[in-house]
């Protein structure tokens, strides 16, 4: 049993009407493990569901709704804190999808608030956030110095009373990665929202999602990232513009790979996969009927790969720290 069960249910919700109890149990456990239970619930809520499944779906939808409200409130608080600086603030990831009412936000699990600001304004942004009640998650001068020099974001901050985290990015990939997206362009072409915040352009959204998934991590949460990408593709006005933009950011291979994987799992299924693509798919589907990650060796290979991607070899020692930090934050 693999997460193919979950992927099928998302791709074609009608298929859940044929599931027996054992498969329902597996589907729910996998969806929760992949943080896709809200998305699954949104996809299947209009189907005929067994009596025991209906309350689970209702709960998941209510949870997603509450998450969304909290995420938008966090964005509002960040906006208030930064308003006086007159700095562009671009929402990223789940909060962005929620703020813009995109399809990707339906039922989505959100997590931290991620924002993108110009690198030149980082100090001012940091000071304003601290004045408004955010504080460092883990104050350690050595880690801190490394983080500021090499990462694409400030060290993580958490709000003192609300207990919610914020990640302030100045570009979308670590400076040590091999690709160097054009951060200034990301900000210049951001789409303004009503309240003064903005989100990335439709093309940049996909570039970011693809970069985040393929160049920045070990594919943990990959099924969720690919679902986002699948939804974003669905709302993309012009594919040609996307290719040009991805090339500009040095992310064309990533975007194309993301497109193939998303199509294979959630879309038409007609994309031609390379041998490496198949390896990715196997890694993404490595979940058993009890929600556990299976295929340990494959997972380890991707773990090593992710750190090789992020860092030149002499910095390899740092990866343990980074991974630990990421492991302690909601994906």
């Amino acid at each position, binding site marked *: 049993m693999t997460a193919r069960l979950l992927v099928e249910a998302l791709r074609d919700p009608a298929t859940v009407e044929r599931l027996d109890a054992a498969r329902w*149990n597996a589907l729910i456990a996998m969806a929760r493990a992949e943080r896709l239970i809200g998305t699954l619930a949104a996809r299947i809520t209009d189907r005929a569901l067994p009596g025991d499944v209906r309350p689970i779906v209702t709960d998941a939808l*209510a949870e997603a709704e509450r998450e969304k409200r909290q995420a938008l409130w966090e964005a509002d608080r960040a906006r208030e804190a930064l308003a006086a600086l007159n700095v562009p603030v671009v929402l990223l990831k789940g909060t962005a999808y929620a703020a813009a009412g995109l399809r990707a936000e339906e039922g989505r699990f959100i997590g931290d608030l991620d924002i993108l600001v110009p690198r030149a304004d980082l100090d001012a942004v940091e000071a304003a956030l601290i004045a408004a009640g955010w504080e460092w998650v883990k104050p350690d001068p050595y880690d801190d110095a490394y983080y500021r020099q090499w990462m694409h974001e400030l060290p993580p901050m958490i709000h003192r009373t609300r207990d919610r985290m914020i990640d302030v990015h100045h570009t979308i990939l670590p400076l040590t990665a091999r690709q160097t997206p054009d951060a200034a362009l990301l900000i210049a072409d951001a789409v303004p929202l009503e309240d003064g915040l903005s989100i990335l352009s439709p093309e940049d959204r996909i570039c970011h999602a693809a970069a985040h998934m393929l160049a920045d991590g070990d594919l943990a949460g990959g099924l969720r990232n690919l679902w986002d990408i699948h939804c974003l593709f669905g709302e993309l006005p012009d594919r040609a513009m996307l290719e040009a933009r991805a090339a500009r950011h040095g992310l064309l291979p990533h975007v194309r790979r993301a497109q193939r994987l998303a199509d294979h799992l959630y879309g038409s299924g007609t994309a031609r996969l390379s041998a490496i693509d198949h390896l990715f798919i196997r890694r993404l589907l490595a979940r058993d009927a009890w929600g556990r990650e299976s295929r340990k060796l494959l997972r380890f290979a991707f773990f090593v790969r992710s750190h090789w991607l992020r860092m030149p070899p002499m910095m390899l020692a740092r990866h343990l720290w980074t991974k630990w930090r990421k492991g302690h934050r909601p994906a």
Partner: protein
Amino acid sequence: MIVAPTHRLTLRIGPATFRIGSAWRRPIDQLARLYAGYPNAEGRIADFTVRLDPAGPLRRWLRPSIFITGDHGLADAAPMSLPHGLLAAEMGMNLQMALGWRRHLLLHASSVEKDGRALVMTGESGSGKSTLAAQLGERGWRLMGDEFALLDLFTGHVFPFPRLVSLKNSAIGVMEAEVDPARMGPPMRATAKGDIRHLVPRADAVARMGEGAAPALLLFPRFGHDLALRPVGQGEAFMRLTQASTNYVALGEPGFAALTRFVAETPAQAIDFPSGEAAIELVDQLWAALP
């Protein structure tokens, strides 16, 4: 090679169904024996999955060490030894409820029912709420739960979660003296919370696990002090109950509505008592004095 949990059991407790998978047989056998009187839930679609996983690659066999996980887990949970497997399973179920249940407001409280009305007792570990509920359960009250009281979001009634009562240290001896030995689980020594032994609720408490009751009295018990009684204001009760609820924040507005209704409509007292007998007598008096 990862192997799916080979030993499994599905349990229904109150409104919740748990699918439990274990790498070891013993905890599952123990659960099956103690929960034998509960409704058969095999083959059902479960609300939660609980897993007792080996804490490391060799830990299935060598000094077996259990990592408790499931749909909801804590990454830094301390592993437990195999003799405490039953406790691990119970903690696993508690964790799912505490982190994942949304159909009622969850209060960290014991509750008992008499004449269609519920007594709810909330307090820290060691407050005596569990032992008192167990004792009342042997004296004509129906035990609804020793750990979680479930507050209905629409009707305001309290619903049962009659899991195995978790008796700690001196409470073990107290209940051993009162109940049929067949209702007691295996003794577990030197756990993180001292000695523990489980008590199976009485048959009628299990049979009526779907029946709620209107709350009539809220108590904040404190065992091991001179007898004392103090009314608790609504504001204080509200504040203490939000701290005693694992899902108040997660529920949002329905949680707010349910909890404010509860404190507005249910009289509350803080009671200190030196012994179980004194507590029982005090409870009877307070109950009789209710309108």
